[in-house]
């Protein structure tokens, strides 16, 4: 019984990682850039929901909608101002460093506006959750919603990418930018769309992250962002179902290693498992193996 409890706890944590990883992998897989600022987009989304709810007396729906819109705009602007000029730079690392600059920028703006002290976030999910075995096993409402939302996003993204023209264009851009241009695809537009979708997902993920763990500070997004990156790599870079699986696996492994091995060393164990998985399957759980040609 207690194992089941821990497993459910792992699922709760994993579902949060998964939903962040979905947005992360979207940008990562298609624009082929590590958007280190993704975690900070999440933080921005949370602050928007927090402020709007406070201003409207606790109505979070308007807050979420506004957060999605503003995060999308933020994503597009960031892409246009900071990332686009570096497309085609001599090294892919250039844009990575800029992303770090954007991350610092957002964190420090939030610090100046909202102050350093944490704010307690009111959950946007009011539902208590499911209860089994006479109340001994409980799945929180936010966990159920997060998993449901993740699955919906997963299916929607899969359909979008595989069935629509823009989605196909994204795949083409991910495969080969030059060839995509030759096929008449507007690479800049496609990548901008990718960022728009990725950033709007960040706002949704932020709402759920802060509902599950209701502490909001300018640095709220940083660590979940990195964990989601790990989850995305674990699942296989660019694979959307992989991100979901990677997130869930990461959450469950983290909780179980805390439970049965050591709560002090759980970080080391989680990263150790990542190393082992990548050594066995060097492109992640669902990653494609790309044969290199001479």
């Amino acid at each position, binding site marked *: 019984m207690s194992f089941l409890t*821990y497993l459910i706890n792992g699922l709760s944590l994993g579902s949060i990682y998964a939903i962040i990883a979905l947005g992360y992998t979207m940008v990562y897989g298609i624009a082929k850039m590590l958007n280190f600022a993704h975690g900070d987009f999440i933080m921005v989304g949370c602050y928007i929901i927090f402020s709007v709810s406070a201003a409207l007396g606790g109505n979070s729906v308007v807050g979420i909608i506004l957060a999605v819109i503003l995060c999308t705009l933020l994503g597009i602007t960031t892409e246009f101002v900071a990332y686009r000029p570096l497309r085609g730079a001599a090294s892919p690392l250039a844009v990575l460093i800029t992303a770090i600059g954007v991350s610092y920028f957002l964190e420090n703006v939030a610090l100046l506006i909202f102050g350093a002290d944490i704010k307690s976030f009111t959950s946007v999910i009011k539902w208590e959750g499911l209860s089994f075995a006479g109340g001994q096993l409980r799945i929180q409402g936010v966990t159920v919603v997060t998993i449901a939302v993740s699955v919906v996003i997963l299916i929607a993204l899969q359909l979008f990418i595989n069935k629509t023209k823009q989605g196909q264009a994204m795949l083409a851009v991910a495969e080969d930018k030059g060839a995509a241009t030759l096929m008449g695809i507007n690479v800049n537009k496609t990548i901008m769309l990718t960022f728009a979708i990725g950033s709007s997902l960040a706002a949704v993920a932020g709402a759920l992250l802060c509902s599950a763990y209701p502490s909001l500070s300018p640095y709220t997004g940083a660590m979940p962002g990195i964990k989601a990156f790990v989850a995305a790599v674990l699942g296989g870079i660019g694979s959307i179902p992989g991100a979901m699986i990677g997130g869930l696996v990461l959450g469950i492994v983290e909780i179980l290693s805390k439970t049965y091995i050591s709560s002090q060393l759980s970080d080391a164990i989680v990263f150790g498992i990542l190393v082992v998985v990548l050594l066995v399957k060097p492109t992640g759980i669902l990653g494609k193996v790309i044969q290199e040609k001479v």
Partner: protein
Amino acid sequence: MKKLGKVISALMASVLVASALVGCTDAASTETSDSQAQTQPAQETESSSDNGATFKIGAIGPLTGGAAAYGNAVCNAAELAVEDINAAGGINGYQVEYSKEDDELNAEKSVNAYNTLKDWGMQILVGSTTSACSIAVSEYTKADNMFQLTPSGSAVDCVKYDNVFRVCFSDPNQGIASAQYISDHNLATKVGIIYDSSDVYSTGIYQKFVDESAGKNYEIVSQEAFTADNATDFSVQLQKAKDAGADLVFLPIYYQAASLILTQANTMGYAPTFFGVDGMDGILTVENFDTKLAEGVMLLTPFAADATDDLTVNFVKKYEEKYGETPNQFAADAYDAVFIIKQAIEAKNATPDMSISDLGDALKGAMTEIEASGLTSSKMTWDASGEPNKEPKAVVIKDGAYVSAE
């Protein structure tokens, strides 16, 4: 192309270095001209910055980064104290100047901050806010024999030098006091602990608490850690305490993580007595926090923002007006620190034209003689080791406010 890049970077480098040097000499020259303009004719002191007509007090703390809440509390409250002192006529008639520097919770940057303040002319240091930074800086204040009073550096080693004193309790002190209190008041039979194994403060209290618990009337049934990188999900730690039947959970941690723990315990339907230390103070002022969750939480803290004595009421009012936040225990410690310095200066009739080292010697001597009263205690004395003697107050949270637990 690369050549151009190099030319540019070389240019930028030289511009920066030049500006750095100019900046420094600038600072130095304005300082000397300042002090020459203001003071009595040429004095035979080693350092030119010592003979201004004002006392210069500096503060260091993390103003950006994850620990910014603590550093800002300390630096704001110190600023407020200096303003209050100046408004009331200064120290022995001398006005006080104040400056703060950011250390990003980084010991190396803390030393940089110290050096910056020294260039500014600092004579007395309030800081650093955090333990590791405070220890690193004390190495340098020791060399300069500058008087250092850390409001909140609680690790044992913070005050290992004779020129360093502290306002807060030391970590072991809090561990011992907590164990004593829990046992004396028969609060529990089984105790669970959740601590931050990546934090100096938390581990320090935890270790002493466990040591001290041997032979007490309760038993420690679970000891679980978390780390700074892993401070969002506490379900495992709580579940283990619950499964082990702990009826009291000891939380030697800061209020940010504690607020999450309380929320998660509530979702789990686990309701033991939670027992915290001074880092827990601040939990009631977290914006939008449901204080019902903290109902019944006990903590040992020297300061409570809703105390009704005039000093606290005034301080909280002014702080809230100026910074828009309710002061926590860090702020109270820092506010006291500045007033303790004032009292020490007055006790020795020290003047701003004394050299840093002479001032340090005078204040060192004064500290063991004075008896201070402030926000964090009505009676504080120090011995030469630098540790304060003051009584921890136990409070319990009732209806969203602190109530004395006695």
